[in-house]
């Protein structure tokens, strides 16, 4: 999975396919960009060829030498065995919205099976059937993405209407109450051992919603009544997963949820050619989880902005691990943490291969970005739950 790999993204789908077929796969952490090792078969080779995945056939002796090299004490490499293909759910509305969803794009392109679920499914306990849940451009604060300027567009009206109907259906007066209930269910899911991956506004709005259980932070433009004048005092940061001490944005017209987001870089640096973030290097043998999440063929990844572009470091809770940061800015781009038996990983920005994705822009064609390091980070997350051991029969 180094620079020689012809299609990094499809490689993850091929590994997922191999796991589905009952193969065990070794993930060679930090070895040639996080390569995979598995026994060969005619079917596997055909599948790799069709998916345009570069592979090398190694003789037994060479495999032994590679394994020994990886396991050597002096090298920052390790082997993790992948055994079970995780059951993947993507949290997304049925409605087609005028922006793309990077994870749905990545999973679809990589041919990784997944199921799309939404509020009704989560509130009826369907989440338990999955190992992995992804959130993308979602707004758990109940402010419909803060797209107030688009309020007269058919897609906005439809989004608002369906959300309000879902809230009423579940006995909530407001969308924010429904979304809080959903956020809480997801939190219980994580606590029980689920894996949560979120991007863009799915990250900060999730924590903001959890913190605002006892108050109203939604301006009248979105829910018909004003915010609670004592909202700031009533925020409970103990309820959140990753962030604390933030201040929600109470301005309905501001396309921003809180000061967790660092926002796009200042204008001289708001340039795809200059904007980048760097991945941290972890000890593969002692910190396999963050190592898995940061496997890549490059150390620096091109930056990209979104409604949530980066996380202000001072608002990260203790224990949250920074996986990637933007140099010279108080900004974490990619973070990871544990809650209960499960974990959460938050990745800021909207689309790793579209520097500024605007409403109405066409979805990114990943055929043009087969080796995208930014998209690789998303796909690292789908294999990470596969590292769990199978339950023994006896």
């Amino acid at each position, binding site marked *: 999975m180094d620079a020689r790999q012809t299609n990094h993204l499809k490689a993850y789908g091929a590994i997922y396919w191999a796991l589905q077929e009952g193969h065990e796969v070794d993930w060679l952490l930090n070895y040639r960009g996080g390569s995979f090792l598995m026994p060969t078969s005619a079917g596997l080779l055909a599948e790799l060829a069709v998916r345009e995945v570069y592979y090398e056939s190694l003789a037994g002796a060479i495999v032994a030498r590679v394994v020994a090299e990886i396991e050597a004490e002096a090298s920052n490499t390790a082997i993790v065995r992948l055994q079970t293909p995780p059951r993947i759910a993507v949290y997304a509305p049925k409605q087609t919205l005028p922006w793309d969803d990077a994870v749905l794009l990545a999973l679809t392109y990589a041919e990784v099976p997944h199921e799309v679920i939404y509020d009704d499914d989560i509130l009826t306990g369907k989440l338990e059937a999955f190992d992995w849940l992804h959130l993308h451009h979602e707004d758990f604060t109940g402010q419909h993405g803060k797209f107030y300027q688009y309020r007269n567009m058919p897609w906005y009206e439809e989004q608002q209407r369906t959300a309000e109907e879902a809230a009423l259906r579940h006995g909530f007066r407001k969308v924010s109450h429904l979304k809080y209930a959903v956020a809480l269910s997801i939190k219980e899911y994580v606590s029980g051992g689920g894996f949560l991956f979120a991007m863009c506004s799915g990250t900060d709005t999730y924590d903001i919603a959890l913190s605002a259980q006892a108050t*109203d932070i939604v301006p009248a433009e979105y829910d018909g009544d004003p915010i609670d004048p004592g909202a700031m005092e009533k925020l409970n940061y103990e309820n959140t997963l990753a962030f604390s001490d933030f201040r929600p944005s109470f301005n309905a017209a501001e396309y921003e949820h809180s000061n967790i987001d660092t926002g796009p870089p200042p204008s001289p640096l708001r340039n795809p050619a200059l904007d980048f973030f760097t991945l941290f290097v972890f000890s593969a043998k002692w910190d396999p989880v963050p190592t898995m999440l940061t496997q890549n063929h490059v150390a620096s990844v091109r930056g990209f902005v979104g409604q949530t572009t980066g996380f202000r470091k001072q608002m990260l809770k203790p224990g949250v691990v920074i996986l990637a940061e933007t140099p010279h800015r108080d900004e974490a781009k990619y973070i990871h943490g544990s809650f209960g038996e499960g974990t959460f990983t938050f990745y800021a920005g909207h689309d790793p291969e579209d520097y500024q994705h605007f409403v109405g822009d066409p979805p990114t064609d990943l*055929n043009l970005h087969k080796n995208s390091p930014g998209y690789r980070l998303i796909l690292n997350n789908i294999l990470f739950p596969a590292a769990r051991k199978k339950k023994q029969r006896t």
Partner: protein
Amino acid sequence: MRCKTFIPLAVAFLAFTALTSTYGQESDNTVDLRLELAEMYMGASQVERAINILEQLREVAPENILVRQRLISAYESVKRYDDALAVVADSKPVPDGYDAAVRLSEMARLHFLRGDEQTADSLWVAAVELEEGNSEIYRSIYHTMLGLRLLHRAVAVLEQGRRDTGQLLLFRTELAYLYGLVDNHEGSMKEYLDLLSENEQLVVYVRNRLSRVLEQTGAVDTYITVAENATAEAPGYRSYREILGWLYLEVEDYPEAFREYRAVDRLGSQDGRAIFNFAEQVAEAGAYDIALAAYDEALAYDPDAIVAADALLGLAHMHQLWADANRESAFDAHGNRQPAEHYDYAFATLRTFLQRFPDDPRCADVLGTMARLQRDVFHRLDQATAFFTDVSTQFPDSPQSVRAQLELGRLAILRDDLDQAEVTMQRLVTTAIVSEVAEDARYELAQVAVYRGHLEEARWHLSIIEESTASSAANDALSLRLFILDHGGPDSTDAALGAWGRTVLLQRQRRFSAVLEAADSLLKVYAEHGVADDLRMLRAMALHEAGRSKEARNAFLALALAHPNSVHALPALLTAAGIQEADMQDQAGALTVYSDLLSRYGTSLHAPEIRRRILAIRSSGE
């Protein structure tokens, strides 16, 4: 005396009035200024400060409506609903009627916001009862409820308004919109149709409104059902049928849509324009059968009308698309002419157009299209020449004329009249110096030189074209020049290249038997030369063009297997797989060839196409 007394009194009165006015103005100014200050505090989110000022102002000017409204807003913005309600309740009483109802509705809104829905509802009921039948009261309450997103309750209020007033036409646009929001698509559509029954001109408005909710689950089906029922009851309403036809188009039910557009035409202009517009849309969607019927019907109206001209051109274009989609050929595997239904129709339709509309400005384009059909589809070179000559002579100095001259030169090549081709191309090169046509003509000159074996001359032409990198012929020129450079020898006359050039000319002239004969003969002489594989490719392509699919596939496979390192190996295998898949309908065999290709050429530029084909065959087999 009376006058003297009156004057001082009048002066005193005026002075008193002026004093009073001055005092009053100062007072109003103070209120205004403080109100402005309160609003500034509100804008700066210092609501408590604003409230302090507004409360003081209310004591000074209890009847000032602006102060009262601002104070209510300020209380509301910090969720002090009880205080806001107290202000409303403490306002100057108004007589029963509209104003009182508005006040009750305002109180209901505040009760709703504080979470007391029951009181809110009873206040709204009371507001309506104040003056049942006053439509403005229902409208005011509806607006309040809409602001609170109480869509179902807003619907109920408007419906009650209709009942209470006995005016069934009231609130039509409001209800149509609201019904759409609450998924009552049937109700929504009925309102819109009623609107249309009053004013047919609103079709576009209604279509725009409906299109906003068309993607909602079940919406379009319900709209169709309602529109069908309405049309059955009032078959003479043109606007109903327009909406129904449009809905059928949206769900791609073209036969039903056609029926409606027919009716629209009959009930409207009766000139076939509506049917022609329908035909265009359906042809665009690839529903050729229906489009054909629609074009025919549009043509059955006045045959000399402008609609007929448009319809003829649309029909001809559609037949060409149809033929392309069917991979229609005017010749069988043995080279015998066979009917090519859609190409034949296209040609005949264009001919009809020329006969009926000889003065139409599109005639030059039509003649050009007919000429290309003759040359490329029917292989009638003389007829093609005649049509291009017509374009050139009938429309001199037009862009079509210059292009026609280039095509005449190309036809000369096909007729094996290379001298004539050279003269024509040379003239174009000198007269149309900067145009794209000139570049194309020069490339043709280079090719003619290759056909003649004049390779030095060909190189000279090609190098000139290459200087114009923006030209579409530049890439072809570069490719041909490199080919000539790479395939020199075996003697100083580059005889092998000359022989190859002549074979290429035969291929271009579609003289496939001659190509096979020449290739077989040359391969005996130049089997080890660089052009050998190119000759083998020409041979295989000639077999394919001649419709000898199996032999062609074998020839392509043989080339690739015997010469796996040839640059032609991959294209040959790819073409063989394509023949197996499309011509021989052997999907399994094609899949094997594609998979083999992928394993051997997985990193080639053709790999994405190979993968696409594999996935397509896999998915078609599922």
